[in-house]
C-alpha cells in the first residue's frame, strides 16, 4: 500500500467491494481485523523481551512464564478491541472517559496505598487495577472525539475544552503521585492536538509558557521527585542512595561494550548491582549482555513499530481514528524514549517501563489494547460507509 493508493482511495468515494480478488486475498487478516506487519513485529518484540527477562529475573522461569501468560492475555485484549469499529469506539469514548475520571476520583478517596502512592482501586477478591492505565487510552480517544467534531485546525475555544479534558485526569494522577503515568497521559492527549494541526504560533507560545512554568512545577513536586531530578543532574552526590540506580545502570550499559557480555553473563545484572533490573531498568540488562548491537537492534524494532503504526494511522479514513491511532503510537514511542533515556542517564528517573520488555502485566495489557484500537481503526477502513 502506498500513499497514492491510500489517497486515491480516500479521494474517491467508498472503495468498491467489487474488487473481489484483492478482497479475498486480504480476507484472512481483514476478517480478523489485524495488521500482520505490526502484529509480527510486536510478537518478535515480545519474544525478545522474554529472552531478556529470563536473564533479568535472575533466571527465574516462573517469572518468564507469568509474563508470557500476560502477553497472551494482552494479545487477546488486542484482538478483541480490534474487532470494534471506530464508530463504536467513538460512541463509547465519552462514557469510558467519564468512568475513568470517576475511578480516579475514587482512587483519591478510597484507593489502595502501595509504595508510597495511592494508585490502586481494589474490589476485594475480584480485581485490583490502576484507573490511570485506562486513562492512557481514554485520554487520546476523548480528545480526538472532541476535536473530530470540530473543524480543524483547532480553534482557541476547542483548545480550552481539550485542556480541560486533559487537565482533570492528569491532575488526579499526578496527585497519587505518579509522575510517569501523568506524563504519558498528558502526552497522549497533547499528541492528538498536535496531530490535529495546532498552529505553530500556539505551539511556540505554549513552549514558552511551559518553560516559564517550570519553577512552579518544581515547587509542586514531591521531595522524592525533586531528589530524582537532582540526582539525575549529579548522580555522584548520593552514590549509595538515589544516585545508586543511575550509576549502576550506566555502568551496566557502558560495561557491555559493543558486543555485550553475553546472555546471562552480565555481572552488573546477575550480581544484583542493578536495581529494578526486571522492571524499569531492564534495558540496562539488555545493554550489558547484548551490547550496543543488541540495543540498536531493539531501537530499530521500536522504530519500525512506530513507523508502521504511523503508517496505519495515516491510512485511517476518519479524523477521529487517525488522531487516536497517531497519538497511541507516538505515546508508545515516548515510553521507549523516556525509559531508555532515564536508564542511560540523559533523563531523570521517571517510572516508565520499557514497553513489552519490562516485567509487569498492567502496562503490557494497556499497550496491547492501544495496538488493538490502532488495528481496529485501520482494519475497519474499507468496511466503513463513507
Amino acid at each position: 500500500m502506498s500513499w497514492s493508493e491510500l489517497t486515491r482511495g480516500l479521494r474517491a468515494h467508498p472503495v468498491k467491494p467489487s474488487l473481489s480478488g484483492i478482497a479475498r486475498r486480504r480476507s484472512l487478516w481483514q476478517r480478523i481485523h489485524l495488521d500482520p506487519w505490526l502484529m509480527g513485529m510486536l510478537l518478535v518484540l515480545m519474544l525478545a523481551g522474554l529472552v531478556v527477562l529470563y536473564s533479568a529475573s535472575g533466571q527465574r522461569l516462573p517469572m518468564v512464564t507469568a509474563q508470557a501468560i500476560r502477553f497472551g492475555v494482552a494479545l487477546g485484549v488486542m484482538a478483541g478491541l480490534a474487532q470494534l469499529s471506530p464508530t463504536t469506539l467513538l460512541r463509547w469514548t465519552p462514557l469510558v472517559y467519564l468512568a475513568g475520571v470517576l475511578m480516579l476520583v475514587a482512587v483519591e478517596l478510597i484507593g489502595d496505598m502501595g509504595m508510597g502512592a495511592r494508585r490502586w482501586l481494589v474490589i476485594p477478591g475480584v480485581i485490583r487495577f490502576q484507573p490511570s492505565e485506562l486513562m492512557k487510552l481514554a485520554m487520546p480517544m476523548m480528545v480526538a472525539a472532541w476535536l473530530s467534531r470540530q473543524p480543524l485546525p483547532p480553534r482557541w475555544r476547542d483548545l480550552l475544552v481539550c485542556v480541560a479534558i486533559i487537565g482533570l485526569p492528569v491532575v488526579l494522577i499526578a496527585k497519587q503521585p505518579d509522575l510517569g503515568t501523568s506524563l504519558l497521559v498528558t502526552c497522549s492527549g497533547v499528541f492528538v492536538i498536535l496531530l490535529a494541526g495546532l498552529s505553530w504560533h500556539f505551539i511556540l507560545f505554549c513552549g514558552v509558557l511551559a518553560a516559564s512554568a517550570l519553577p512552579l512545577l518544581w515547587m509542586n513536586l514531591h521531595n522524592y521527585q525533586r531528589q530524582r531530578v537532582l540526582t539525575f543532574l549529579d548522580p555522584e552526590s548520593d552514590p549509595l542512595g538515589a544516585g545508586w540506580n543511575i550509576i549502576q545502570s550506566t555502568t551496566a550499559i557502558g560495561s557491555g561494550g559493543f558486543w555485550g557480555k553475553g546472555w546471562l553473563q552480565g555481572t552488573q545484572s546477575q550480581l544484583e548491582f542493578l536495581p529494578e533490573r526486571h522492571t524499569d531498568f531492564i534495558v540496562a540488562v539488555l545493554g550489558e549482555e547484548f551490547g550496543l548491537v543488541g540495543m540498536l537492534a531493539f531501537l530499530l524494532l521500536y522504530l519500525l513499530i512506530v513507523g508502521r503504526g504511523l503508517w496505519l494511522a495515516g491510512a485511517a479514513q476518519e479524523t477521529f481514528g487517525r488522531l487516536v491511532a497517531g497519538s497511541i503510537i507516538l505515546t508508545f514511542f515516548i515510553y521507549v524514549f523516556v525509559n531508555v533515556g532515564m536508564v542511560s542517564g540523559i533523563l531523570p528517573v521517571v517510572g516508565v517501563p520499557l514497553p513489552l520488555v519490562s516485567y509487569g502485566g498492567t502496562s503490557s495489557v494497556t499497550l496491547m489494547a492501544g495496538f488493538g484500537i490502532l488495528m481496529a481503526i485501520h482494519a475497519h477502513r474499507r468496511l466503513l460507509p463513507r
Partner: protein
Amino acid sequence: MRRRRDTLKNPEQELRVFRMRSLLAVLLVVCLTGLLGGRLFYLQVVQHEVYSTRSEKNRVRVEPLPPTRGLIYDRNGVLLAENRPTYNLTLVRERVEDLDATLSLLVDLLGIPEEEVEAFRVRSRQRQRPFQPALLMSDLDEDQIARLAVNRHRLPGVEVEAQLLRYYPDAETMVHALGYVGRINAEELAGLDTGNYAGTHFIGKTGVERFYEDELHGQAGLRKVETNARGRVLRELGHTDPVPGKDLTLTLDSELQKLAVELLDGRRGAIVAIAPATGEILALASVPGFDSNQFVTGIDVASYRALRENLDLPLYNRAIRGHYPPGSTIKPFMAISALKEGTITPGKVIYDPGYYQLPNDSRRYRNWLRWGHGRVDLERALAVSNNTYFYSLAHDLGIDRIHENMTAFGFGERVAHDIYGESDALMPSRDWKRGRFNQPWYPGETLSVGIGQGYLQVTPLQLATATAVLANRGQWVKPRLAQRIGEEQVPVALPDTPPDIMLSTEGWWDRVFSGMEKVVSGREGTARRIGRDLDYRMAGKSGTAQVFSLGQNEKYNADELKERLRDHALFTAFAPVEDPRIAVAVIVENAGGGSTHAAHLAKAMTDAWLLEDEAPDTEEVREVLEREDGRVTGN
C-alpha cells in the same frame, strides 16, 4: 491553514495536515532515537573502558586477611599477651526495618552507652557499600549474647561477629613493661602501609607492643572474591595466605615482675631489675599501673578521665620516663669516674668535719651527719654515704669530666635496646646550662651533682643499667626486653653498645664493690638493717632525693601535702658480688622511712631471684617496713 478558517470540516485538508504532522513526528522520532543511539554509543564504545573497570570493581572485592598478632611470653613461657575471640555486635542497615526502634531496643537490652550509638551512626554513614555491616558494640559478654539470641526474631539485620582481640591476663602488673594495643587512629593510619593493615584494627600504642609492632603484626594476606551487590561472597577468585606475626619471648620474669609490683603496692615508685651479664631486663615495674585491656576495646570517657586525673599518675611509666635526682646512689659511679681519671686512689683519706668548703669560699656544703664522719677513705665514704668525700671528689673531677664519665655509664642517654618512649633524663654540663639558662657553670653546682642532687636527673632504668655495668666491671651490655623474636635469638652484643669502662687497676672495682657491700653488711652501713640475714654477698647503695616543689596547679589536702613532700627513697644493688646475676634499682616516691625502705624492696627482689626455693613473702617485707617507717636512718 493560516487565517483561513472554515466552520465546516474539510477532510482533505485535515488529512493533509495530519500527514505533514506525522511526517514531522517521524522525523522527531528518528532524531530522538538517534539521540538515544548516540548516548549508547558514548557509553558503550567511547566510555567502555571506564565503565568496564567500574563494573569490575563492583564485582570483584579484595578482602584483606589480617594476620594473627604474635603472642608475647615471659622468659619462662608464661603468656603475657594473647588473642582472645570476642564477639562484636554489628548492624546491616539495609536489613533493619526501623533503625531507631532497633537501636533503642538494643540499648534497652544491652545497656549500650549513648556515645557508642552516636559513634555507630557515624560509622554507618562512612560505609563503602550497601549491606556492609557497621560495628555497634564490641566485646559482648556471654549474658549479652544470650539476650541477643533470645530476641533474635525481633532484630533482623543485627549480627554477632567473632573477632580476635588482644588480651593481657595480668594487665595491671605488666602494662608498663608490655604496653598495649589500641584502635588505629587517623594519625597512625597516615604513616602505615595501608595494604598490610587493611584488615587490622589494632596497633601497638606503647611499650613492647609498639616497639615490635612490625614483628608482632605479621604480613596481611588477601582474598579476591566475587560478590553480589549485597556484598555476599559468591566465589573466590584468588587467595594469598597471611603470614602471622612472630611470637615474642621477653626477658621479663613474670614472677619477679609481680613481686616488684606487689612490693610497691599502695605507693608510687618503680623497680627495674637487670641480669648484668646479658642485659636482660627481668622486671620493669612502675606503680600504680592500670588495666590496659580497657584500652584495647576502647576506654569510656569517664574511666579515661579518672585515670588521667589520678594524682598518682597511673598512666605515667615511671620506670622509663620518671626523672628523679639519684641522690647518693650516684656515688659509686662518681667513685669509678674519679678512679678512672686518676683524681683519687682507693687509699685516699680525707678528714670530714661535717662540711666541705670550696677554696676561697666561706660557704659550707654539709655532710648529712652534722658532726662529720672524721677520717674517711673511699670504702667508708660509700658505706656511710659521706657527702664531704664526694664534694671533694666532684670538685677535683670538675663538671666536664663528670659529664663525660657519667655519660659513659648511660646517664643522660637512652640506654635500652628496645624500649619505646624511654626518656634520656638529664646529665647536666656546661653546654647544657648555657643553652638552658644562658649562665656559666658554678663550682658549687658541681658539688651538688657529686652527691646526686642539683640538676642531675636519672630514670630508674638508667640507674639499673648503670648498676649492671658497674656489676660487670665496666663491661657494657644494652638492656633489652626481647629475648627471642619468633625463633630468632636477640644477641647479647648489640650494635650501638657504648664502649666499656676501663680502670687502670682491675682491683679497684673490688674496692668500690667492697664499699658498697659495707652499705648493707658493714657496721656503719646506711642499709645495714637488710644485711643482717643475707644469704649471699650483696653490694648496694642507698639514696634519698629531696622533693623540692610540687606542681603549681595541683591541689593536695594537708595530710597528702605532707606525704607528698617527703623525700624519695632510692636503692641500687647487685648480687652476688662475686658473680652478679641481678642488678636492681628501686625508687619509692615520698617513702618517708628513709632509704632503708627502698633497700628492703631491693633485697626482696634479689632474694627472689637468687634464692630459688625461698620466695620472699611480701607480707613480711611490709611488716618490716611498717616497723621501720618514721625512723630516719640517714642518707
